[in-house]
């Protein structure tokens, strides 16, 4: 598994866009133009991985939605990348009848059923276009990769497989089956793309177990069918031969409800929490300049600007997991280096201007030419760098505004203390009643975390007091009902979630940032330093990966799709620690868990961990789901 999942999926997409032939390395090859047609699912999959420019470079002249009005463009091949649903199939048949394009390359995101294939066949026959349908492929790409080591299942109909949908009390068996099927289908596609058959571990008695059983069955069926097995043949590639199979840990969201509600301090998680961040695209409200508006007091216009945070952005890759003050400093440093380089280029320009007339310049020509060519070639890089610096400056400023107005640093510190059960210096009631600190939602989150992490629930009197304070602060209490139920339920099952010992040290109010007079003036914001601690999901992974014995994970079920007989035992056959693992949270996940796993992996050499979840929500969205559940 040397290549990351993002690279694998990108490679698969590029191959598909090259008419399902491996792309050539030749840079000056003849351009072949084509048209790409996708549905919303396809769009979500492609957009984090390939930019419009990259599509253009591959020869895609137009990219269109399947269900839009499309005009016939003769003598152009068309590549379709859609889900095999009824409406999509109908539309494809319609296209065939209308003879929109010269040839058709049909790629289905997940496997298409035989009957639907026959529908297309009959439409093609009717339109006398069978020869035009050049290739039909099942791509098995039904998942969205956001980072090198993070993926989510789908974005379009995520209400169907949300936490709310899985945990609502009046769920019917058929619904549950449908949800499980969707999840298992995506996971199966994921493993096909990854090219590895994992060993599955899951807890007992919840949605995760159902998913594991179904997935095991599906993998097993596919492996038995040696002729059509997707895991053999040269698709595996020589570079993918690893002596160990990866470990697939299925976790259920119910094992840890506090983390999605947690206030956070790392860059990527903050952006997700505070701004509108979706499929690696963040939208920022930008006010029209932070200087005082000129006399005449025109109201500041607010534009919404959206930025893509991609894998090519080196600053982002380096700092997306850093605590926020570090990010602020880093942006400042980048700006300084950029200015220095810019000055260098300008200086070179003036030198060249002066030297031009000198007769003896020929001898120095080659040196200066070299300098000039390097300057010229580095200009695009410089411009790109400037763009990225601007981007991050805007984003970080927006985040900082939110932090200051809602006093998120206070919340973060307090919650960390709650989760690590260290002594609290301020009473919960104070914070809740404090009108400046944060929105109603923030207070509700804090209270829920307190409720979840306390060993015994607060007494009735206390509870009433808190409730009153919360209602005063205009909070919505329905989510509390659900949490109460959940707490009662999980108390029967296992030990309460132990969040590990952590500590948060405030690093002093005046950091270096202030002294360098940067625009990120963090006065009044505590410069907090995160100490490493393990969230419940990380701990579970650690136990399973290192084969440690722990009451929490000892009775996890064990599935090995490659074994001939499925066994019900939970004793793992393999005694060695695993080198690669995939953690999947059924019911939803977020960036805080992801970041925690990344930190865990960094601390250990040679281990790779991928993180996936059925959907990605930030605290606000999760709260909404909890309220809905609490209202039932």
């Amino acid at each position: 598994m040397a290549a990351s999942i993002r690279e694998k999926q990108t490679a698969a997409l590029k191959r598909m866009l090259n008419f399902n032939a491996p792309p050539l390395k030749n840079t000056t090859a003849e351009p072949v133009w084509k048209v790409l047609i996708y549905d919303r699912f396809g769009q979500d999959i492609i957009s984090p991985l390939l930019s419009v420019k990259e599509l253009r470079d591959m020869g895609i002249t137009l990219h269109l939605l399947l269900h839009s009005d499309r005009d016939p463009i003769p003598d152009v091949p068309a590549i379709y990348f859609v889900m095999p649903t009824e409406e999509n199939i109908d539309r494809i048949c319609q296209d065939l009848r209308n003879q929109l394009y010269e040839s058709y390359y049909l790629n289905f995101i997940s496997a298409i059923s035989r009957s639907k294939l026959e529908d297309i066949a009959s439409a093609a026959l009717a339109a006398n276009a069978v020869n035009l349908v050049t290739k039909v492929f099942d791509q098995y790409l039904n998942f969205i990769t956001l980072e090198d080591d993070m993926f989510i299942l789908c974005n379009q109909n995520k209400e169907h497989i949300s936490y709310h949908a899985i945990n609502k009390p009046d769920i019917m068996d058929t619904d549950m089956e449908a949800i499980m099927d969707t999840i298992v289908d995506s996971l199966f596609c994921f493993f096909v793309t990854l090219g590895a058959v994992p060993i599955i571990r899951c807890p007992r008695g919840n949605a995760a177990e159902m998913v594991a059983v179904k997935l095991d069955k599906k993998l097993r069926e596919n492996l038995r069918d040696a002729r059509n097995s997707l895991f053999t043949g040269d698709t595996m590639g020589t570079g993918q031969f690893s002596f160990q199979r990866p470990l697939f840990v299925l976790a259920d969201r119910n094992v840890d409800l506090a983390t999605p509600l947690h206030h956070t301090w790392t860059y990527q998680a903050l952006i997700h929490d505070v701004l509108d961040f979706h499929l690696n695209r963040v939208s920022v409200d930008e006010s029209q300049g932070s200087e005082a508006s000129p006399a005449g007091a025109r109201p500041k216009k607010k534009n919404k600007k959206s930025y893509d945070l991609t894998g090519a952005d080196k600053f982002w890759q380096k700092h997306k997991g850093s605590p926020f003050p570090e990010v602020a400093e880093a942006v400042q440093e980048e700006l300084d280096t950029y200015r220095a380089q810019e000055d260098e280029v300008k200086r070179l320009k003036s030198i060249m201007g002066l030297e031009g007339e000198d007769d003896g310049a020929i001898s120095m020509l080659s040196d200066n030419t070299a300098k000039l060519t390097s300057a010229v070639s580095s200009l695009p890089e410089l411009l790109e760098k400037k763009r990225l610096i601007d981007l991050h400056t805007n984003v970080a400023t927006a985040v900082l505004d939110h932090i200051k107005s809602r006093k998120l640093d206070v919340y973060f510190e307090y919650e960390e203390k709650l989760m690590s059960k260290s002594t609290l210096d301020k009473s919960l009631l104070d914070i809740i009643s404090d009108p400046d600190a944060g929105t109603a939602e923030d207070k509700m989150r804090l209270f829920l975390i307190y409720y979840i992490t306390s060993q015994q629930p607060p007494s009735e009197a206390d509870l009433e007091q808190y409730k009153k304070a919360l209602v005063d602060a205009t909070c919505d209490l329905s989510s509390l009902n659900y949490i109460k139920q959940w707490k009662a339920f999980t108390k029967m099952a296992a030990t309460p979630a132990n969040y590990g010992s952590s500590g948060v040290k405030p690093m002093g109010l005046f950091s270096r940032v202030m002294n360098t007079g940067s625009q990120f003036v963090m006065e009044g914001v505590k410069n907090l330093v995160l100490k490493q601690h393990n969230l419940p999901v990380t701990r579970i992974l650690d136990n399973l990966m290192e084969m440690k014995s722990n009451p929490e994970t000892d009775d996890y079920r064990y599935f090995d799709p490659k074994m001939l007989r499925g066994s019900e035992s939970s004793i793992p056959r393999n005694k060695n620690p695993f080198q690669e693992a995939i953690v999947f949270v059924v019911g939803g996940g977020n960036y805080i868990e992801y970041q925690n796993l990344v930190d865990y992996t960094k601390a250990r050499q040679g281990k790779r961990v991928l993180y996936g979840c059925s959907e990605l929500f930030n605290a606000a969205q999760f709260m909404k789901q909890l309220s809905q559940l609490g209202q039932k």
Partner: protein
Amino acid sequence: MAADITLLFKASVKTVKTRNKALGLIDSSIREEPGGAKRARPRARDGFGGRAREVISNISKLKDFLLQHRKEYVNAGGVMCSDVSRMTDSERDQIDQDAQIFMRTCADAIGQLRSDKGKQVVSAQVRDHRAAVLDLIEAYLKGVCKLYSEQRAVRVKRVVDKKRLSRLEPEQISHDKQQSDGEENNDKPVSDGNVDLWEDNRVEDDLSPEEIQMFEQENQRLVGEMNSLLDEVRHIEGKVVEISRLQEIFSEKVLQQETEIDSIHQLVVGATENVKEGNEDIREPLHGVPESSAAGHMTGSSVLGVGVVLQGFHGSSPQRSAAELLGAPAGVCVCVCAAAVSAAVSAQDRGA
């Protein structure tokens, strides 16, 4: 990873066909025409698509041509190699010119396509598509032009370098020759062009055989000189290493002696003290009764003998660790000396 189900699709097509036949739904007009896929659709072959494809094929031809002659163009052979396929400068210029004309033609064709596209009445999507197609073709052309300009840049650089090196020489031809001799050893390519700039006092590129021979001899001489220098340096290096080694040994020895001297010093001090004590001890009995003097004399002389032997023993092996050797017998030795002295004194006493 992805499953190719094209065959499955074709099979489905057959299934559907047979099923239709079985159900009698076949329409007589719907017949699979051989190659009928490319029906007479209003596709003007010399329309946009065709012209675009033509341009692309032209550009590809240019690319192939450039790549084919690239090796000769960028000829890196030195003066010594008389390659038959070596290009003259005029040929290179010809290639340059041709390439440029070709590129210009292609660029014009693209521009024309672009303006034509604006005139035709087509849907918005088709227009976008065509614009994108033209962008792609332009990018391809740029790539090929880059090939060409790289080649050219290498050539120009060579010329400039040659000129620069030549300029460093003074007017005299002999010096010129020596300089270029040094340079030819680095395999500089010979460029026959730019004759007009080099008319005055530059090196003749075609060196006559005598000059070649002379340069060869110079070469040999220089090589010999360098080698001898190298040998000398090596020799000196060996000597220096030797010296340092000897010096190390010397300093080791000095340190050893220092320790020994220290220990001897200690001993002497100890001995002195013992003697003093001994003297005091002696004085006491002297003032007392000297009755055991005979026995004392016997033991004193035998002990003296032992002491002498020990001393001699000790003196013959100075290299042994002085401390351990001196330690044990030293005390004995000193006491023995003291006893001997006392015996001598008592003997003297008796004698006196």
